[in-house]
């Protein structure tokens, strides 16, 4: 029995739009261990959300397709599961919190009606049992007057409260894995901290794993045990959280960290990585980051780098190739000597 709740191996996803096809996810590997919080970081359009939706089996069937690879949930490949089978997992063993608490709840149904769904679908419970369960979970996520809120409509709640409702929705069936897709992006800063604290707390209490998708490195530093950095549909770096912040190996990760505004300084200009994420259709040979990389050399444009593994620190960059390192050291020496 492995200690990995979720293992994604060489996942490739293709989107079809009429006759055009694109590959937003190209050979993604990562895993989530039991009780661990894995952070998935990257900027908009790098494939974070597509990856998480594919784990939930929520990609649009008509326009998207898992080309290859597998998604192992508790050592069982769920990537090609039938809809009916998948439904037994959703909201039950894997659940998900979405980015927009304001639009993620149905405006014409009460909180109670919406929260009863996972229990109704997955557990055999009477109506009063369901109601008691919901109230208990609403209390657990720190909502006051849970007995009233259960009969209220989403528009009567604030954004932070709605996100708490979303968390309780995800929590109801005691999932083994919870995916949180930018859970705090749409919230006020003070509420953000509360929600993150809550996620941390319930993760420990419910003994589940958390997959936290974010573009915010400070959230990662605060929450995660391990981090996967994604760029343009690929995992470019993976490491323990402290290791990553101490020694970012991939130039993209380094760039991300440099673009964080520091607390007390007021520099004239904030650092930003030049250029833009290439569109899936523009990606050809070579490293996906090469066109924006300050260290790129010929090989970067010609060949796609493999994942170099140094201890538990994986990065997809030619600079980590032992052979390249040797050459560079020699060059440096010859420059010094001459």
């Amino acid at each position: 029995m492995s200690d990995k709740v979720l293992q994604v191996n060489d996942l490739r996803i293709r989107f079809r739009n009429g006759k055009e096809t694109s590959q937003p996810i190209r050979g993604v590997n990562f895993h989530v261990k039991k009780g661990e919080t894995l952070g998935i970081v990257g900027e908009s359009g790098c494939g974070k959300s597509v990856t998480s939706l594919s784990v939930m089996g929520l990609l649009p069937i008509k326009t998207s397709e898992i080309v290859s690879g597998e998604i192992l949930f508790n050592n069982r490949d769920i990537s090609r599961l039938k809809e009916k089978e998948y439904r037994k997992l959703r909201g039950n063993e894997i659940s998900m919190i979405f980015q927009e608490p304001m639009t993620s709840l149905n405006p014409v149904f009460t909180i109670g009606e919406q929260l009863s769904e996972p229990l109704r679908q997955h557990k055999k419970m009477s109506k009063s049992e369901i109601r008691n369960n919901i109230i208990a979970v609403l209390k657990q996520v720190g909502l006051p007057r849970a007995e009233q809120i259960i009969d209220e409509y989403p528009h009567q709640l604030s954004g932070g409260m709605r996100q708490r409702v979303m968390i309780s929705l995800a929590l109801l069936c005691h999932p083994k894995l919870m995916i949180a897709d930018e859970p705090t992006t749409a919230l006020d800063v003070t509420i953000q901290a509360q929600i993150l604290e809550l996620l941390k707390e319930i993760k420990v209490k419910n003994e589940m794993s958390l997959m936290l998708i974010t573009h915010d490195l400070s959230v990662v530093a605060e929450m995660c045990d391990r981090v996967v950095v994604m760029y343009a549909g690929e995992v470019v770096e993976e490491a323990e959280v402290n290791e990553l912040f101490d020694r970012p190996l991939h130039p993209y990760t380094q760039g991300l960290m440099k673009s964080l505004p520091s607390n007390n300084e007021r520099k004239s200009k904030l650092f930003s990585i030049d250029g833009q994420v290439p569109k899936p259709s523009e990606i050809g040979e070579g490293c996906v980051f090469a066109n924006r990389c300050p260290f790129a050399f010929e090989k970067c444009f010609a060949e796609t780098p493999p994942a170099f593994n140094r201890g538990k620190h994986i990065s997809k960059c030619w600079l980590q190739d032992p052979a390249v390192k040797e050459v560079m050291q020699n060059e440096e020496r010859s420059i010094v000597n001459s």
Partner: protein
Amino acid sequence: MIRLSGDPTALFLPPDAPREQIEEYREKLGFNRPIYVQYGDFMVNAVQGDFGQSLRSREDALPLVLDRLPATFQLAISALVLSLLISIPLGVLSAFRRNSIFDRIAVAFTVLGQAVPSFWLGLLLIYFFAAQLNMLPSGGAGSITHLILPMVTLAAYSVARFTRFTRSTMLDVLRKDYIRTAKASGVPTLRLIGRYALKNSLIPIITLVALDLGTLLGGAVITEVVFAWPGIGRLLMQSLMNRDFPIVLAGVFIIALIYAVINFIADVLYAYVNPQIRVK
């Protein structure tokens, strides 16, 4: 406006009537007064519920119109029920199976339904079901069988409109975040569509239905004429032809009233479907 078609006296007296007789008639009915005086007079009486008498039968106009109301209601409501029964499932299915063959056929039919003029459809139905097959009466009222053809004719247009509208609202709703949330909770497709998506799409559908019911009640003129249905529409048509304008005015008034009432009912229904506009 009603006077644009000419002086009503011309239709009531023989063309060769002597000048004095015409003048006498105009005097008696008050047509020789200036238009604005006649208008003011009419308004003063109308707000008291008196629309005058039919020029032809000398009966009070309002009761004449109200007499026809049940027939019009019967036709309009049954056409509405029929079109809702057909169009909502059709529209929902069409949206859910978007771009499938079923969807394309449904869309083609709705375009056709909106394009076909109702007098022509009515005539076709009479030709096939009444004249050729002898299954249904071609006109008149009195039994369920009399109702079928005009109901179908009247419903055809609404079915088309409702189906298209349901389809597009449903497509809109299906893209919403909360539908994804429900899916992520493990809600089966049928329940997702039938319960969660449908209730959201009902709000705009109610608006359309309210608007169309007004049209069905007031504007079924052509269908009522084609099928000799004894409703308001046919009465109005006849009165217009006869320049019997007190009846026309009373009819228009009743139709306007019906519109207002229906819209009020629609507003109440909104609150039932949409909690956000419920009054505490």
